[in-house]
């Protein structure tokens, strides 16, 4: 374990071989240095862990995800995924964007099948999985609807189904449930946890809901407002599998308060 600057705990002591995503002083500026979106972020994310990322609006969360996905180039620092420097989009990473970015000319199920199509001709199995995923996100009746026929939350759910269809072992989710009501959100949280556990995927999850962040994660990464920095990595000690009731326990609420405190003081 390398020493990490800026008080960010590196999480539990894990074998270096088990670190899937590692950032060392990652920075990103836009407009030729005019806007510092992310500064000096160092972190290690172990294999199979679920990390939530919280922070004020505009602090660089989406930017960090896009850096990890290799969609934009960092301005400074080092960033490795599976031990290899990130230099462009790479396999094994699935990303769900803040905006649903569905393709207008494809029905819901065809949108979900897209990641598969990118890699091979979809089999009957792929298809049935796609339909299953849509059912799971509660869109049983909208399998063949086009995006413009869906509500905002429904579009987000299609995008989630599409992410899960990738079968990637690193999942990056950018506010996936922003447009969902509490109940749907809760259900999908559980489903997401289940699937992630099943696959053993490493997950980075951006959310503004601190309760959700804690409920889902092994660790919560807290970011400061602009210029975006990692303020703290908070360990979540609760055992898995977790039940919704967990959220009513005092320990849980204490942790929520702690994270809120960290956010509030920065």
């Amino acid at each position, binding site marked *: 374990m390398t020493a990490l600057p800026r008080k960010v705990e590196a999480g539990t002591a894990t074998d270096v071989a088990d670190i899937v995503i590692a950032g060392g002083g990652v920075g990103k500026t836009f*407009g*030729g240095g*005019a806007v510092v979106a992310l500064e000096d972020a160092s972190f290690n994310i172990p294999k199979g862990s679920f990390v939530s990322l919280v922070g004020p609006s505009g602090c660089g969360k989406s930017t960090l995800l896009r850096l990890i996905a*290799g*969609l*934009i*180039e960092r301005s400074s620092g080092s960033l490795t995924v599976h031990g290899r420097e990130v230099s*462009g989009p790479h396999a094994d990473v699935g990303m769900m964007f803040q905006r649903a970015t569905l393709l207008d000319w494809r029905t819901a199920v065809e949108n979900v099948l897209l990641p598969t199509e990118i890699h091979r001709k979809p089999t009957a199995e792929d298809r049935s999985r796609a339909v299953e995923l849509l059912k799971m996100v509660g869109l049983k009746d909208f399998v063949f609807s086009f995006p*413009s026929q869906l509500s905002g939350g429904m579009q987000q759910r299609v995008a989630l189904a599409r992410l899960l269809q990738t079968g990637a072992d690193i999942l990056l989710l950018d506010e996936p449930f922003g447009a969902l009501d509490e109940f749907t959100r809760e259900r999908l949280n559980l489903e997401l946890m289940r699937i992630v556990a099943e696959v053993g995927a490493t997950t980075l999850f951006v959310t503004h809901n601190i309760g959700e962040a804690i409920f889902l994660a092994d660790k919560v990464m807290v970011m400061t407002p602009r210029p975006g920095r990692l303020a703290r990595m908070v360990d979540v000690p609760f055992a898995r599998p977790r039940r919704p009731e967990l959220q009513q326990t005092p320990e849980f609420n204490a942790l929520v308060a702690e994270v809120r405190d960290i956010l509030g003081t920065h």
Partner: protein
Amino acid sequence: MVVLTSSTREQDHGTRRGAGSFFHAAAFHPIVRHFAIFAVLIGAWEIGARTGTIDPLVLPAPSAIAEAMWRLFVTQRNIWWHLLVTIGEVLAGFTAGSILGIGLAIVVGLNPMVRKLLKPYVIVLEATPRIAIGPLIIAALGFGWSSKITIVMLVCFFAPFINTLSGMLSVNEGAYELFRSLRANKWQIFTKLMLLDAMPVIMAGLRLAMASALSGALVAEFISASEGMGVLLKRYTASLNMASAFGCLLTLTALGFAIYRTMEAVGNRIVFWRHAPQMDAVSRRRQAQWQRNWGA
């Protein structure tokens, strides 16, 4: 311009970063490479002409054309006036045609009823070869400038029309609802939303129009004129002086190319929001302007 650049975010990531310094070496500066390709093409052509593979009556040798151009522009200087006349017709006709095309698209695009009623006539007009209706226009407007400009206008109004219309009809739906909720009138929806949203497509239409304006001017001059590049071209072709004819043709081509490229550059400026670096500059400029006019 849309055509010749890719999207903002893609450029953000220098995927071509490692493309090797070989191509970027000074010797392979784009202009040098362009020139090399050009030279090879011209060389092949010259050889073709010299060896008789290409009939000089069909396509004269580059050297002969160069000589002819020297004569046209420098020693004899008889091309200048004709060129000026044609440029005048092209610019006037293009301006009129773009205004007509875009204007018609606005009327038709903002009003579905008018669209239904007018569109067939617009298409009929477009589908009727100008070379065939040109004489009718001359008959109506006489042999002077106005008929030529009208012909050019009719030749080049269609691309801006179709492109503006298709841009307007495929406007971003969310933004359209926003405008409707603000109770913007049709004209505002058009000027503040549709026009800008469709701008890349409209610019493409205008470039197409520019190219056809040249052909249009030539068609008009072929039909009837006593001055202009078409006349010169006709004279040279009729006397089988193909080197000079091609000199004229190349002049027109160069003219067209220059105008086209200028329009492309202007288009890039207009559609600045598709280009990250330009966006920063515009942002700064607007800030400065704001502070100048309305304080901090």
